[in-house]
């Protein structure tokens, strides 16, 4: 009996130990997933736009564009993320008023504007505008770039799907202080949240560019000298490596300060005259001869001047007018600051050009760019319709009143 008791006691002791200690071994083998934010509830961008009365005209444009029914789905898909730049009805009315050449007066009922959109704006144009104003990521203004240079954000507009499935036109949201823009268009109201993205209301319409920088330069009647200069600078260079090809490359992202023809003529006249005077030609005669030689863009193809206007010299001056990034005037600094130009690739220590802009609210009213060897700054012709902020597929172009001299 004693033995049995012993066994019982021992057994009971062991049993007690089990109960005390035989809780499960805590074996950690499973990974801890990282919390992935779910899709927020609420209306999608498409639903939000459709439900906002003051955006009805842009919503009409969106419907017209076919974006809502395209595949793969975009702003209707709650699982995706987009940023839309949306002009409200007032902006749309001004746009249509201008587009119709005044045929649709500003005071017309909304239905008239709406009807105009449906009847008069081609689907492709509507799709271009709407797609160009959709960025495939959620970009609150707090994440807008605040310094120069700009970052380019692809839109969902692919101008040449056959070239590359990843090709996209880009926009340039930016922020300085409290003021925000997309390209050079100020935002009127920002950061309206939808379930799948953000709506920023714009004070104008950021229109998609359709042509390259070279296309503009080579066809503008007041840029004939710059065009000829680019071509002179490219002579002797393989086609694929020319500056012209660069200005035509859809992958580029540049800012070009194009001197007007008169600015180019004046600079060339001075340059040639100096050369003649150095050869002993009297100043008056030299000036007259120089003026005659520089009278047309053919000056760059004049064999008499080949030794004076070498491709290297001309190209050096041309690339001194080009920044390797895209700067709308609203992105320019309010106090003069230097920015590198493409000349840096040949002369790495070159300080570049000095740029300054004057703002009234979100709008630039004056801006200058100055070459190192220029006595005075060159004025950027502020006129967003034709001479400044000329947005191309691969850059932006500003016309200026002097040739920028690097040395």
């Amino acid at each position: 009996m004693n033995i049995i008791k012993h066994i019982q006691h021992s057994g009971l002791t062991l049993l007690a130990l089990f109960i005390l200690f035989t809780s499960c071994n805590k074996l950690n083998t499973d990974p801890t997933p990282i919390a992935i934010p779910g899709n927020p509830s609420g209306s999608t961008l498409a639903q939000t736009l459709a439900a906002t009365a003051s955006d009805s005209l842009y919503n009409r444009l969106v419907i017209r564009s076919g974006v809502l029914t395209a595949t793969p789905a975009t702003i209707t898909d709650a699982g995706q993320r987009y940023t839309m730049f949306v002009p409200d009805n007032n902006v749309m009315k001004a746009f249509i008023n201008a587009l119709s050449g005044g045929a649709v007066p500003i005071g017309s009922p909304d239905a008239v504007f709406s009807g105009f959109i449906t009847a008069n704006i081609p689907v492709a144009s509507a799709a271009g505008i709407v797609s160009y104003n959709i960025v495939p990521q959620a970009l609150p203004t707090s994440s807008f770039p605040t310094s120069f240079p700009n970052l380019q954000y692809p839109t969902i507009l692919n101008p040449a799907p056959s070239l590359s499935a990843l090709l996209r036109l880009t926009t340039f949201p930016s922020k300085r202080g409290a003021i925000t823009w997309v390209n050079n268009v100020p935002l009127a109201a920002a950061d309206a949240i939808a379930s799948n993205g953000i709506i920023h209301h714009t004070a104008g319409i950021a229109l998609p560019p359709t042509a390259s920088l070279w296309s503009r330069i080579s066809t503008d009647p007041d840029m004939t000298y710059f065009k000829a200069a680019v071509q002179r600078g490219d002579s002797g260079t393989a086609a694929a490596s020319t500056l012209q090809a660069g200005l035509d490359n859809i992958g580029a992202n540049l800012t070009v300060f194009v001197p007007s023809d008169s600015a180019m003529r004046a600079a060339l006249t001075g340059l040639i005259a100096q050369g003649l005077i150095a050869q002993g030609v009297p100043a008056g005669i030299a000036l007259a001869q120089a003026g005659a030689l520089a009278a047309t863009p053919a000056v760059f193809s004049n064999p008499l001047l080949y030794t004076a206007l070498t491709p290297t010299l001309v190209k050096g001056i041309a690339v001194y007018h080009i920044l390797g990034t895209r700067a709308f005037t609203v992105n320019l600094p309010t106090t003069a600051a230097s920015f590198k130009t493409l000349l840096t690739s040949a002369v790495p220590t070159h300080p570049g050009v000095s740029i300054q802009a004057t703002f009234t609210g979100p709008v630039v009213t004056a801006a200058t760019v100055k070459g190192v060897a220029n006595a005075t700054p060159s004025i950027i012709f502020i006129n967003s319709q034709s001479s400044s902020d000329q947005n191309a597929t691969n850059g932006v172009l500003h016309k200026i009143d002097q040739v920028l001299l690097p040395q």
Partner: protein
Amino acid sequence: MKKHPRYLALLLIVFTFTITATAQTVTVTGNVKNSSNKDAVPAVSVTIKGSSSGTFTDEKGDFKVVTAQKLPITLIISSIGFETKEMLVTSASSPVQVDFVPASSLGTEVVVSASRVPQRILESPVSIERISAANIRNSPAASYYDVLANLKGVDVVTSSLTFKTPSTRGFSASGNTRLNQLVDGMDNQAPGLNFSVGGVVGLTELDVDNIELLPGASSALYGPGGMTGTILINSKNPFKYQGLSFQIKEGIMNTDSRFRSLSPYHNWSVRWAEKVSDRFAFKIGMELVAAKDWLGYDKRNYSRTGTNGKIIDGDRATDPNYDGINTYGDETTIDIRSNVFPGIAASAPFLKGFLDTLNGGRPMNVSRTGYNENEAVNPNTLNYKLSGALHYKLSAKTEAILAGHWGTGSTVYTGSERYSLRNLKIGQYKFEINNPNWMLRAYTTQEDAGESYNATVTTRLVNEAWKPSGGATGWFSQYSQAYLGARLNGATDFNAQTAARAAADVGRPSPTSDQFRTLFDRVRSVPISKGGGLFLDKTNLYMVEGQANLSPVTKNVADIIIGANYKRYLLNSEGTLFADSTGKIGINEFGAYMQASRSLFNDVIKLSLSGRYDKNQNFKGRFTPRATMVVKVADNNNIRFSYQQAYRFPSTQQQWINLNIGSNTQLIGGNKSFISYYNLKTTPTYELSATSPTTVNTTAYGFPDSKPESVTTYEMGYKGLVGKNLLIDAYGYYGEYKDFIYRTLVIQPTSGNVNDVVTALANNVPASNVGRIFSVPANTTSKVKTYGFGLSIDYRLPLGFIVSGNVSSDNLKDAGGFRASFSTPKYRTNFSLANNGFGKGKRIGFNVTWRWQDSFYYDGDFGNGDIPAMHTLDAQVSYKVPNTKVGLKLGANNLLNQYYVNAIGNSMVGGLYYVAFAYNVF
């Protein structure tokens, strides 16, 4: 009680002396039977009182003593587990019938390893633990190696079912180079792979006579390496243990199908020993273990820099850079922002700005999709051991032994990676002549890694073989294109990553497909040196040693033993493991030792002094002393004091390894030739902080000379028998390591500029992206200290019940600033209740053992992280079938099937339940 020493002295003599009848003689025969159940008792010592003549009973309990003495004589019949009996023999005409009474007693064992001479365990001058064949027989453990885990102060790291590495006093690891394992006197560390192969190659279970464990420093007696302990496993002498024995264990594991489906466990072993004549005996043994192995199943996410790292949040679905601990192939990672996007931006410049904005300009690390352990590692473990020995008595006291242990099998080992040891073959062969007063031994270890491969590297290469990571159409390019496509369509980062992985993984071989298996088999068959995952290691070890006991001459002054050894490693991996692509590398070591001991004050105090000198051709010679004192405070109660030094030369791998483990990381040895080979000084390298992953030392690393490591240990202990029923053993130790060997990471910046590494680390860019990482052995300049204690109590209850318990603790101190890899719980404890025989005929036995260990931080090259506290419960019941020599056992390891793991990335060990059928197992 007082008779014990005398009986024991006789017993000792019998253990080591046998006689051969050479004169005109009397032959006494007899038979020994268990008094409680009338079973024959084999391997019982039968000696003639007053002489050194004697023999052992065979498997039928029969014995035959031939003596020149005239009758009457007195026979002393003794065996552990029975009461020693004296029988007067007056006539040789009829056999002597001995009724042998079973008895359990405590503290009666004799140990050899503590002083290299036999002595009572109670009088050992240093801490020692002993496991007898009876302990193994009565243990629930499915493998005898597992019995070690229940001793105090022992940790066992389980790499897989058949790959277990015991450690004492800290620094646990798969393949512990600070603890020696000697099997029949042969060091069983694989000379090239640097892990002890006892579980895979050593003795078969039926041939194990005893295991002695010396925790603590023991170089002074056993040579370099015994820093934290030495395990000595001794086989059964065929003169003593005779006959055919076999055991069949059949079991089941993975019973809950948590990690893999229910699978069988087979363990069959057989031993046959024959005493052919009084001069010649032989034995042969085989053991086969086959099972579906435990599986490494740690799916947690691991962030690594070379061999440093930590567990982080994230899984395959939510972390694009997921690198699961036990998933392989996903170690291949790059920052697609800095490595792939620029290429895309070059051909699609309009995207450059967009690419610049992604992820806020931070790195976007992406890993390839991996495969699970059971897909990359042979899921079947197989182990086949074959061993045999020929014993020949040159004279009554001198025995020559020719022995071999050979083993092959497939198992899994964790080093800097998980290695699938496939058809590994290791043979140990020795020739030995021993005599009570001298011993000569020569042996060799022949290693052949077979088809072993690095699972991690192999799986990464399988991914490359299916779809290369780099290039314009490579996996990462496809991933990046798909990612950008999705992002440009408005997908969130998470959705785009998911879509990108799906796109890049199109056509990925399913792990169960023939395509995968074909690819995998192809890659694992190509040597590492030729861009595959295969080891070609055929490193060998040769050793000659001798010992002489001068006591017969010197006993008036002191008992003196002297010994010496010569050891030669021949590294041969054809460039797949060592820097030996141009030829084999030899490493020579020699050593000599001497020990003097003397009893004072009527045996109240026993002193011993030992010293050992060793020299390795690549390192300066080293002397290590040891001094011990045992004070007898009462009969069977002794207090021991010891001062011991131990040291080790850097292992063969720490000298000569040259192994690319992926992630731009190279393990190299400390040999100076690596410095010029890798231009480590001309193109400077910089040490990465082990404790702060984002820090690199900007002063060039100096590559100080590699030195042997030494430890000085002070220990005090008590072992005593209180009454007859309570055995207490306690120890406390303090050790100081000098020139502690560890590994550290240095980086050779690709640009040559360390600031690029600083910037990369600050930006969370993997260091391996900006430079080549080398893991190099180093010695600490400060001392590393360890201390701890252990206490065990065995209490004998009536009827042979014994309750035992122990608690032990090991601690590390002053180990800041480097990775000491202590990896040991602060506390652990074992409790057991056992009985070797009770009930009618004392035929029923049982054993219940419970073990608990504290949580601890495991610090290994394969993975670092917290190991939770764990407990296991093992149990067995056994029954001896009357008149058949048959024993039946029902056993359970980890009875409650509580999965545990004792090293990061190692196999999850669950319950193993078996029945064993044993015939003539003694």
